[in-house]
């Protein structure tokens, strides 16, 4: 592991240079697929990029005081954290990872969500605060399942290195854990049926109601990067590790897009659940999957 390898991973692939266009592309795929499932024509290919440019060009109102400073800060840190999470994904066999990078990835994946909660409260908007409370509640509900699923895989392979996990062979346990992660992703990415955070017919845009211009553009970009990182994590766990870097990148993108389409299909076919139903769902149904996963992992360890 040397500095150039680390920098190329964080800045080129699968870091910033790849992740930012990929974020716009995944957002377009999601919006286009959703539109086609609803018999609409959907946005043109460049629409997420144009949306970003348009927002960047809009005027941001002066926000005095410390809360104004915080409101300007949260979106930037969200983008940085989400881009960092993308850079950690072991798509190519480069040896740039380290033991424990799985924990770093999980924590970086949580940062945009935390900052979104903080952004809603900083804005002092009623809708923002309701959105933040919803996001915080959902965060606790789905993260129990999400973290247990990922930790279940790590325990079964006895490593917290993403590279080692990506290179290890798939097992029944891994598929159970991947299924549990897929169940959590709609809540993580604010998709139906768990789109309570930004329930636009109820609370406008939730935590980002008071955000405009470049600040909102950064939040949208962070959301796109979350898509890349979250679907990329599933792709890394599902896809076989390939030595050829170009083939590995192609397989990674193909698996990620498959996850995007599955999530879009779930979102198009469901309606938004109430907060109590959502929390109950994660409490009662999804934990069962993870109990199976963790118990299998422990059993496999005993067998070894």
């Amino acid at each position, binding site marked *: 592991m040397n500095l150039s390898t680390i920098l190329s991973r964080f800045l080129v692939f699968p870091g910033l240079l790849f992740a930012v266009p990929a974020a716009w592309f995944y957002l377009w795929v999601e919006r286009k*697929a959703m*539109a*086609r*499932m*609803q*018999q*609409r*024509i*959907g946005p*043109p290919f460049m629409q997420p990029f144009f949306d970003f440019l348009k927002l960047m060009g809009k005027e941001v109102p002066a926000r005095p005081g410390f809360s104004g400073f915080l409101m300007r800060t949260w979106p930037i840190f969200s983008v940085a954290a989400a881009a960092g999470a993308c850079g950690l994904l072991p798509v190519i066999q480069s040896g740039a990872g380290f033991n424990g990078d799985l924990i770093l990835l999980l924590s970086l994946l949580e940062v945009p969500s935390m900052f979104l909660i903080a952004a809603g409260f900083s804005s002092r908007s009623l809708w923002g605060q309701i959105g933040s409370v919803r996001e915080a509640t959902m965060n606790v509900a789905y993260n129990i399942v999400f973290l247990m699923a990922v930790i279940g895989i790590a325990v079964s392979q006895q490593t917290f290195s993403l590279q080692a996990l990506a290179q290890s062979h798939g097992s029944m346990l891994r598929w159970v854990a991947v299924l549990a992660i897929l169940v959590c992703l709609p809540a993580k990415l604010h998709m139906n049926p768990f789109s309570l955070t930004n329930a636009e017919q109820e609370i406008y845009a939730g935590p980002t109601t008071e955000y405009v211009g470049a600040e909102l553009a950064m939040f949208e970009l962070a959301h796109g990067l979350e898509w890349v990182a979250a679907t990329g994590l599933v792709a890394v766990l599902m896809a076989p590790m390939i030595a050829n870097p170009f083939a590995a990148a192609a397989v990674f993108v193909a698996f990620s897009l498959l996850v995007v389409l599955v999530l879009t*299909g779930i979102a*198009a*076919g469901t309606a938004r659940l109430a907060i109590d139903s959502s929390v109950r769902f994660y409490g009662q149904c999804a934990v069962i999957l993870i109990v199976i996963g963790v118990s299998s992992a422990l059993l496999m360890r005993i067998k070894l």
Partner: protein
Amino acid sequence: MNIVGLLLNNFSNRPVTFRFPQRPPVAPGYRGLVIHEAEKCTGCGMCAFRCTSRAIDFRNTRTHFTWSYDPSQCTFCGRCVDGCADHALTQAAECPAPYFNPGELKISATLPRREKKLPAGDAE
């Protein structure tokens, strides 16, 4: 699981919406924008009289009259067309074209007054 079949069916079928500026086809008998044929109009002002939404404005002087139409106020009821004895008004059989500036579809024509041609039996 009907919803899965429905989504897949929608996905494979053609979308029902159109990309701008293409417009959807309209049903037969569709009542669109009012079209004014100046050469047929005698300036009787019956259209303005019959227009309940005040979309048609009619002002006349001794020598000229001005006929104006504001589609933003029009309910496309067709009463003006039905009441036009000169057949100077018709309605377009397609959706109005998209426009970018407020009032872009407004039309106005100032024409010289003409005597209405009466049937031969009515002339004294």
